[in-house]
Each structure stands twice: as C-alpha cells, then as structure tokens.
C-alpha cells in the first residue's frame, strides 16, 4: 500500500504500538528504507548513529596506541625527533591538511544536501570529497616515494647516507605507487566510454564523477612534485645540517666523512668554519682550567684511566673539552676520537634511532592513509546511491555515518600534522 520512499507514509505507522512481527517480508507497508525491526526512521537513524559513534570510539583507542608510542619515543630522544622531522616537508603536510579540511567541509555540506533532498548537489559534494581524498593520496605518494628514494625508511631498512643523500639508481617508487591508480583510472575511462556508447545512462552518470575523482590523484601528484621541488633546497640542507648537529651534540667528534662532504653546503660550512676557529684558539694553562672548569674533572679522570694511552690523547681531550665548555659546537674537524669514548656507540645507534622515528612516521601516516582508502570505498558506495537518489530527509543515515567517519580521519590528521611535521 502507501509506500513512498521520500515522504511520510502509511497509516500503519500512526499507531506507535504497531507490531512488526505480524507481517512478513512481502508485506511492505512501510517505506523501503525503513528496516522491519525499527518503528520509525528516527529510531533507525539514532541506532545507526550510536553504532557509528561506538565504532569511532574504537578508532580513537586504536590510534591512541600509536600516539602513545610517539610520546614515549619522543620523550626518550627529543633530539632525534627534532632532527628527523626536518626531513618532512612542511609544505606538503600543510597542503594536505588544507585538502582534508576542505573535504570535511564538503562532506558536512553533503550531509546537509541529503537532509534537504538536494540530490544533484549531494552527488557533487560527495564527488568533491572523493576528489580531495585522492588528491591527498597523490601528495602522499610524492612524499613517500621521495623518502624511500633517499633511504629514509623504518628501523632496520633505514639506509640514508648524509654523504650521498641523493643516491642514483634504485627502483622508481613513484611509478610503483601510481601503478594501481593508473590501472583504476584506465578502467574507469573504459567504463565511461563503454557506458556512453551503450547508452547506459545510470552507469554513465556514475562513471563521470569517478573519472574526475581518479584524475584528481594525478593532480595531487603534480601538486606534490611542484611543492617538493620548490621546497627542496632549503628543506634538505636544513635536514642534513640538523643531523650533523645532532651528531655534534652527541660528542661525535670523529671524522665520519660526512662533515667533509657537507662543508660545501651553506649553513653547515659556516658551522664547520666556526668550530675550526674555535679549535685553534690557544688553550689556557692546564692548572687554570682545572680550577675553573668542572668539566676538567672528567678529563683528569680520563687521563688517569688505563685506556688513555698518552699525553697526546689527553691534550686532544682537553681541547675538545674546552671547545665544548666554550659553547662551540663540537665538530669533526679534529681527530680526537679517544677524547670521547662514548661517541662510538652513539654513532652506531644513530641510524636506528632515526629509523624509529620513521617507523612511527610510516605507521601513523600509513594507517591514516589506509583509513582514507577505506573512506574512498564507502564514499564511492554513497556516490552511486546518491545518483540513484536513495536519500531523503527521513533517510540520510548512511551519508551522516560516513561523514562522521570522514571527520574523524580529518581529526586524526589535525593532530598528526603538527606532531610530525612542525616539531623543531
């Protein structure tokens, strides 16, 4: 009987106590969108929404583990995090934040469209949200492939070499990441043409926005390429300088071979020169230093130590010490390995520490990207249903639920971005 999908229906529902058990599936005296076990569309909507909120709670808890790992490792080695975050391109992160915020806006607008039964606009909003999602992934593809190329990989695979920051050869990671998207785009293009030629109107209507969505991935890749190449100079020299500085702080006075290769780079060269100047400054008499500097107690100890073989080493130690107490950055211009016994293990550990940062980086941003992919999946489903005009002012639940999911993905990025990209 009275079954209209869009509007108010059926006298059967006017009695609140109406039981559903007494009619079977063939007996559709309720709107097609209202499940049998619900009395009213509002009850159905509220139930679905509660379920969605509970799912989002599990999502928050899921991500909290990773944020906790981030907090622990950052508390342990703040300097590693500060140094390594210089390798992340803030411009790419900021652009992606903007893209995600805009997609959140269009998603919220989409929910409004569904509630107001603006079917065309809803389709447009969902397509825009999807386009932003693929653009985000396009920028991410540039970010990831660039880092893999440099060897900025998770612990265990981390192979970044400051003396050879741009290794020649190696696989074309960007091509590998783009390959599935190229295949999908080609498939959608074929679908678009075939549906047009066969006159399949609905399929053609679906393929049109999806084609735009696929192409937006490559817009993202292009955008990322421009930003990455534009920001390359400052960003990378910065990164190298910082890694070298972290070395210095750890007392890595030995000649790593990296210092020399970097001396041609602007900022770094200045540091090196400054420290060289520091090194030739004449030392005050030993006695005076003993009296004035508490650090010298350590040298005294080193000198009396059995591992210290001679006066030369002691002198080198004193020199390094005075450099440090004078506030100069300890640089690798003098060969005083023996002065800093602790430096050797520190150096051995450094790449793995950077690897820990990148493990956390790939884990957090990667799982976030997987959430974006899942979001794309459900948004495509919504897009098709929206073209079919499934939603109305009493049935917009799916749009609202997917919207909530999309907003929480955005919310996680809101925290990820400053924590990863903006620390110093």
């Amino acid at each position, binding site marked *: 009987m009275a079954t209209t999908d869009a509007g108010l229906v059926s006298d059967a529902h006017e009695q609140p106590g109406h039981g559903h058990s007494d009619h079977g599936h063939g007996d559709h005296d309720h709107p097609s969108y209202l499940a049998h076990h619900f009395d009213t569309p509002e009850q159905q909507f509220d139930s679905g929404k509660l379920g969605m909120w509970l799912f989002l709670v599990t999502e928050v808890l899921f991500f909290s583990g990773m944020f906790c790992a981030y907090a622990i490792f950052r508390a342990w080695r703040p300097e590693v995090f500060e140094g390594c975050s210089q390798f992340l391109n803030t411009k790419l992160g*900021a652009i992606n934040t903007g893209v995600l915020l805009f997609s959140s806006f269009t998603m919220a607008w989409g929910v409004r469209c569904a509630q107001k039964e603006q079917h065309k606009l809803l389709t447009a909003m969902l397509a825009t949200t999807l386009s932003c999602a693929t653009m985000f992934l396009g920028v991410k593809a540039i970010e990831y492939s660039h880092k893999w190329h440099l060897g900025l990989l998770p612990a265990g695979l981390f192979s970044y070499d400051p003396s050879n920051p741009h290794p020649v050869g190696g696989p074309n990671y960007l091509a590998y990441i783009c390959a599935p998207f190229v295949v999908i785009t080609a498939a959608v293009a074929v679908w678009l043409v075939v549906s047009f030629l066969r006159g399949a109107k609905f399929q053609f209507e679906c393929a049109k926005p999806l084609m735009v969505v696929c192409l937006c991935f490559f817009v993202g890749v292009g955008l990322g390429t421009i930003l990455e190449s534009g920001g390359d100079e400052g960003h990378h020299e910065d990164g190298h300088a910082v890694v070298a500085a972290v070395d210095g702080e750890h007392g890595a006075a030995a000649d790593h071979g990296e210092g020399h290769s970097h001396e041609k780079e602007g900022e770094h060269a200045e540091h090196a020169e400054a420290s060289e100047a520091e090194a030739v400054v004449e030392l005050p008499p030993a006695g005076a230093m003993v009296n004035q500097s508490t650090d010298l107690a350590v040298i005294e100890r080193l000198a009396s*130590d059995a*591992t210290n073989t001679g006066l030369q080493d002691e002198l080198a130690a004193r020199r390094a010490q005075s450099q440090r107490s004078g506030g100069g950055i300890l640089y690798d211009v003098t060969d005083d390995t023996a002065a800093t016994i602790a430096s050797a293990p520190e150096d051995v550990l450094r790449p793995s520490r950077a690897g820990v940062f990148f493990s956390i980086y790939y884990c957090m941003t990667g799982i976030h990207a997987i959430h974006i992919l899942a979001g794309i999946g459900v948004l495509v489903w919504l897009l098709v249903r929206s073209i079919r005009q499934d939603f109305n002012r009493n049935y917009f639940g799916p749009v609202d639920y997917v919207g909530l999911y999309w907003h929480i993905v955005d919310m996680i990025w809101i925290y990820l971005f400053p924590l990863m990209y*903006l620390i110093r």
Partner: protein
Amino acid sequence: MSAHENAQEGYDFAHPLPLPLLAGTFLVLTLLTVLTVAQASFNFGSLDVLIVMVIATIKAVLVGAIFMHLAWDKPFNILCFIGSFVFVGLFIMATLFDSRQTAKDDIPVLDDAVVAAPAEM
C-alpha cells in the same frame, strides 16, 4: 520535534545546519592551520608542544561540535566520544610518567667498574 509540530512522530528529525555556519567553520579551521604553521617559525621553547596541541584541540573541537553535529547530538553519544579522549589522555600520561621515572636508570660502566650514579632528586 518541537520545530515540526505537524510532523508525524519519528519523521522529519533532520536538522540541516546553515551553510554559512559550515563555511565559517571551514574558514576558521584554515586560519588555525595557517596559525599553527606560522608559529613553528618562532621559538617558544618548551611551550611549543603545548601551543601546537592547544591549537589542534581547538580545531578538533570545532570539527566535532559542528561538522560532526556533536553540539546537537544525543548526550550519550557525546559522553562516549569524550570518554574515549579521556582514556587516551590517561593512557599517554600514565605511560609517560613511567618513561620519565625510568629514563635515568642507566648505570654507567667504566673499566668494568660500576660507577654509582648519583641518586635522582
């Protein structure tokens, strides 16, 4: 239902948000993003993380309250969601307490002799 006196029970429960409100929220979020990027070029020392987190939390509250309609949602949904954040806060704080307490537990070894580390505090 008060806005729809003539509607049937259980129908017309949608409350579409005004478009200017949504657009305004997006604008504020973008401005806050610009602000958070801009502040990274100044050195606020240890306040850095705090400032960044406060800005991020303002953004998250805006997204939650307006984009996710939490400001108009059922109290139970709000309770669940806020509750999960309280858990996250406790989780991270408790772990960091332990991390800070044990971070300086290293016992330096020189020449096979254990050097007694000065007691903390």
